[in-house]
């Protein structure tokens, strides 16, 4: 960056292996987090509600999928289903159990999603790659059908939707339609920061290294004593946990109420897949950058053409969006398979030497 790390010596392995070994990086990240908490003071309600909260929810989901695909190498197209499990579990937990703490409910619904994820991860022990992708599609279709058909999941209400009930935390309303966008934003942001930090440390540790070994060459990993069964199912469980928590936040803090369509293949699974491809497979920071990008493109398309005097219809805009996403995917896979995360890294390397390139 614009600073040098000269003079920062490490005397212990702990220091050397820190997430941010350079002091300035640590400061920058802390400032960024503080800035993120300050956003509600400057952003208007539309931006908070429609963009920032959406971004936080999807970033969480992208981290979840990245754990599974980027680190453990297991393809999944069932992200939407796992998110739906989280959302519906949270709905059942909050509406059927009086006085349950909302945070506990969200975490428990993540646990439900993890359990479902493990069940649908079982085929990964016998199959890989495309076959597994198709197997996770089974989860996608079956689970959404189940939530649509079985009235118990949505408390048999006539509309068939689930609606987030109002729940308080420390005396502040944080869910439901009457909760303020600021409060909901803060909750989602806290979840994202805690979970991103947790994921970052998870993938640096033993579990994460096991995942990467399985991803890079499963047979070799097995030979050096990594048990594929536990490792893969662990990846499915943790990934689904993240997706489940994100799904619960999606209903409780972002949408307020939704039907199963909100979690379908195109709305969630593919979008999240695009986020991690464009952001960078196998990178936590990349997942967040990818989520920001995928959320911003449609907003750019809605706002930019009118600014330069072009009038495009919603349908046209939708198709343009599809084409742009498709081109971006192919482009990134060809030019920079490691996505934004790698571009960011290159930029940093360049800036370190700036203005004197070797």
């Amino acid at each position, binding site marked *: 960056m614009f600073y040098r790390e000269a003079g920062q010596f490490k005397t212990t392995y702990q220091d050397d292996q820190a997430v941010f070994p350079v002091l300035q990086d640590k400061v920058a990240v802390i400032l960024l987090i503080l800035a993120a908490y300050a956003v509600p003071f400057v952003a208007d309600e539309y931006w908070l509600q429609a963009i920032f909260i959406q971004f936080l929810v999807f970033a969480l989901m992208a981290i979840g999928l990245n754990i599974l695909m980027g680190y453990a190498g297991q*393809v999944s197209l069932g992200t939407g289903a796992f998110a739906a499990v989280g959302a519906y579990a949270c709905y059942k937990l909050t509406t059927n159990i009086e006085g349950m703490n909302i945070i506990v409910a969200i975490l428990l619904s993540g646990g439900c999603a993890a359990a479902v994820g493990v069940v649908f991860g079982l*085929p990964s*022990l*016998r*199959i*890989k*790659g*495309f*076959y597994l*992708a*198709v*197997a996770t*599609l*089974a989860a996608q*279709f*079956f689970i959404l*059908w189940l939530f*649509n*058909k*079985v009235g118990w999941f949505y408390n048999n209400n006539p509309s068939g939707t689930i609606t987030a009930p109002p729940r308080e935390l420390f005396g502040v309303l944080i869910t439901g339609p009457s909760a303020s966008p600021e409060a909901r934003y803060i909750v989602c942001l806290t979840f994202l920061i805690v979970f991103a930090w947790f994921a970052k440390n998870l993938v640096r540790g033993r579990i994460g290294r096991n995942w990467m070994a399985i991803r890079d060459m*499963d*047979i070799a990993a*097995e030979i050096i004593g990594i048990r*594929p069964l536990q490792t893969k199912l662990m990846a499915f469980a943790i990934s689904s946990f993240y997706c489940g928590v994100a799904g619960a936040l999606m209903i409780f803090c972002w949408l307020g109420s939704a039907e199963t369509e909100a979690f379908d*293949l195109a709305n969630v699974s*593919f979008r999240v*897949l695009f986020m991690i*491809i464009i952001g960078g497979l196998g990178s936590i920071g990349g997942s967040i950058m990818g989520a920001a990008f995928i959320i911003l493109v449609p907003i750019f398309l809605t706002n930019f053409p009118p600014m330069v005097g072009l009038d495009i219809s919603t*349908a*046209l805009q939708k*198709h*343009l*969006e*599809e*084409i742009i*996403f*498709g*081109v*971006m*995917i*192919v482009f990134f*896979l*060809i030019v920079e*398979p490691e996505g934004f995360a790698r571009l960011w890294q290159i930029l940093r390397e360049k800036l370190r030497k700036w203005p004197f390139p070797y």
Partner: protein
Amino acid sequence: MEFLESILVTPFIEIWESPYYFIELVLVGLSTGVLYSLVALGFVLIFKASGMFNFAQGAMVLFAALTLVGLMEHGLPLWAALILSVATMVGLAFLVERFMLRHLVNQEGLILFMATIGLNFILEGTGQLVWGSDVKRLEIGIPDQPFDILGGKVLLNTFDVTAAFIGALLVITLAVFFQKTPMGRALRAVADDHQAALSVGIPLKTIWIAVWTIAGLVALVAGIVWGAKSGVQFSLSLIALKALPVLILGGFTSVPGAIVGGLIIGVGEKVAEGFWGPALGGAIENWFAYMLALAFLVFRPQGLFGEKIIERV
């Protein structure tokens, strides 16, 4: 208990009591199955010849059908629209080779798979951008009258029979092409081993273009048949999602597997919807095929006719 009975016992009693309804469902299932097979064929062809799992096959079906209908709406006669659509699909094959495959040589299958998801979106977007996204009717003169068989107790549609016939014709042509022509042999060689094929002088570039052209033409046929049946619209590209379980069932590399798998899925789906659907709340067609395929994977991961190339881990 009551629920278990309604899914484990009652359907079989119903099948026993109304055999003609059962036969009718089987026939409807067979004709839908043929259409699934058509789409699955496109997948198999590309997988066989380049080891690439082409998720965009469904979008190619939509794109081909949209192009044909769009041209006909602009007043072109059927034959001219058909020629232009074929040319479009050939052009698409060239573009895909030039701008996508060429740069992705030697990448792992998963990267290629994700690239085709990108292509899927490009094709869906472009097709609807150019030709509009409303439902279009496709009239190509396939007769559509029901006729009776089995002494008037079962209805069958001329359209379905014609579609089945077209499907069968396509499969035979492809089988002959793959087994008998030099190009077919080259394709199989490339599928077996890229490097070995290159070193005996098989041009990879030409092969890719050829394969994508064929897959494009198969998509066009599938698009015409599906489009004539249910109108040309966005949902055509979702048929690809139905073709995936067909592939798992039949094996990724087997042309006969795509056919048999398609028929099994088609029949299983309709019969399940007809007899088990009411007890389960209906609309089980959406996932039944996947569950069938998933259950099947556990016992025979390579599919019915697939080559046993899956590594067990």
